[in-house]
Every structure is written in C-alpha cells, then in structure tokens.
C-alpha cells in the first residue's frame, strides 16, 4: 500500500512543476504517476480527464483526487489534493509577501518563456504517445477530427465536446473495426 506522505510528496512535486492550467499538468502526471510509479494506467488518466472536465472544479485537482482515491480511498484523496495545492499556496504567498518585484525581472521572464515552449512540446508528445496507444478504430479518428473542428471553428465548450463524444458511443459501428 502506498504511504500517505508518499502520495502527498509526489503530488507536491507535480504541483511545483505545473505551469499554466490543468491540461499542462497531464504530461507530468503521465510521466510521474503512470510511467514512474505506475499508480494508474494512461487509459485511466484519460478517463479521469474526461470526467474531471465535466465535474466541478479545477481539472488538476479533480485528477489528483481521482488518483488519490484509487490509491488509498478517502485519505489518499485528501493527501493527493493537499499535495497538489500546497506549492501554490506557499509560492503565491511568497510572491505576494516579498517576491512581487521578481516576477517582472527580465531573467525570470526569459526562464518562463522557455518553460512555456516546453509545455507546448510536452503536450504535443503526450497526445502523440496516447494516440499511438489508444486510437485504433475509425470512429476514434472521426471523433477526434470532429472535436478539433468544433473547438477551432465553433468555439464550443469542453463540456459540450465531451458530452457529444459520449453520445457518439451509441452510434452503431457502420464501418467496422480497423485492423
């Protein structure tokens, strides 16, 4: 059984290295929780993101709660959530209390410029990895393409996209399975 402090520490570390919103955290979750510790599979991670998208709150917190619950029920859920929010609390308080002027520092800005690029690259790689493992059927390609079109051109919200995709599960498989 995984220790509660271990859960807290791993999520603390991930919170510390997440820059941006919850989606930016997925590559880190994949590399730490799925690949390094093998606490969940990549498939489960994507399930958590699918559901976490439609339930209240931050996706990062929802994903943490899911993983924590899977490991140690309610105490794991609390440990993971507290772990993922603790760095935010500490760092924002430090910034607000004493470090505000450093945020505008040129060197800090340059470092963040680099980090933002790596977040984009990490997202591309994460999707590519998950694509190789999880997208096999013709209908998956169609759902993916339709979702992209709806996002780029119709500006539909994420919840609507997820619900539409869920509905597509009940469309009979006309084209059969690829492979």
């Amino acid at each position, binding site marked *: 059984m995984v220790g509660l402090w271990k859960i807290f520490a791993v999520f603390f570390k991930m*919170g510390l290295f997440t820059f941006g919103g919850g989606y930016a955290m997925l590559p880190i979750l994949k590399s730490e929780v799925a690949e390094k510790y093998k606490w969940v599979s990549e498939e489960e991670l994507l399930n958590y993101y699918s559901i976490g998208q439609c339930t209240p*709150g*931050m996706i990062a917190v929802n994903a943490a709660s899911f993983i924590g619950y899977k490991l140690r029920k309610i105490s794991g*859920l609390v440990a993971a959530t507290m772990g993922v929010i603790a760095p935010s*609390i500490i760092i*924002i308080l430090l910034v607000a209390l004493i470090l505000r002027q450093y945020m505008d520092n040129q060197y800090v800005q340059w470092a963040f410029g680099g*980090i933002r690029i790596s977040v984009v690259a990490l*997202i591309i790689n994460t999707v590519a990895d998950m694509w190789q493992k999880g997208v096999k059927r013709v209908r998956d390609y169609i759902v993916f393409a339709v979702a992209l079109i709806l996002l780029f051109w119709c500006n539909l919200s994420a919840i609507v996209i997820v619900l539409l*995709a869920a509905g597509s599960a009940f469309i009979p498989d006309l084209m059969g399975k690829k492979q």
Partner: protein
Amino acid sequence: MIYVLLCWEFFKIGLFAVGGGLVTVPFLFDLAEAYGWFSTAELTDMIAVSQSTPGPMGINMATYAGFKVAGIAGALSTTLSEVLPSMIVIYFVSKILNKWSDNSNVQKVLSAIRPAVMALILFAGWDIAKITIIDYKTFGVLIFLTLAMRFYKKSAIFYIVISAGIGLLLKI
C-alpha cells in the same frame, strides 16, 4: 466574519466553475464588483502572476485573491474551500466508477470520449502556443524540444528545468 464570507464565495466558485482555471476568472471579476475586494487592475495582475508561477492556475488565483482580502488566513480559506467541492464530487464519482467500471456501456462511453479529450488537450496546447511561439527562434526551440522528447525519453520535469535554462540562454 470575512473568512466565512470568503469560504462561502470560493466554495461556490469551486462548485460552479466547471472546466478548470480560466473558467474562474469571470467569477473573480464578479467578486471584485460585488464586494470591492480588489480592483480590475489588481485582478489582471493576479491572473498574470498565477499564469507564470508554478501550480494549477485556478488554485494560484484563489490563493492570491484570498491573500489580498484577508492575509494568510484568507488565502487558506479561499484555496481550501475552492477545492472542497471537487473533493466531494470526485469522491462520489470514484465510488460509482469503481462499481460500474466493468459495465460494457460505461467502457464504451469512456473509450468514445478519449479521442475527444486528446483534441481538447491539443487545443489547450494551441492556446499556449499562440502567445508563446511568436518568431523563428521560439519555433525552432519548440521543434528542438519536441524532437528531443520524442527520441530522448526523460521525465517531463527534466524538460521543464532544461527549457527554463534554454529560455535564459536564448533570451526568449
């Protein structure tokens, strides 16, 4: 009691902001207007700081807003009450999921959603790319990092640290 009010308001944000960090921004603007806790300029600054500090953005903003209103105790009140709805809802969803995860319809729905979530993630990446990949230099670094990650498997954190160094070196 200011703390009770903060807890209540941020509990509501946690409950009604479905879909993540940026969704909380309009709620914060409403709070600024309703209570005068912070000005629009302060709020804009909070968003900028929250985007460029570690941690999920929504949590950062909750902490910052709570601190502005009522100091450290305020920050703890807002942050903890914003995540409470998530924890409660995910607790129940996990219980249900455990019970039903072998059901073939649940499996069907979850596997149908997966490609859509990949599209959502890619779209989130595109949103960051729009403001980040602005010239040949940043584009070149993106290509370099993407290929490096592909062929030289290291943890995500490793690449985040490396890219901070690249940013400093190339003055991105």
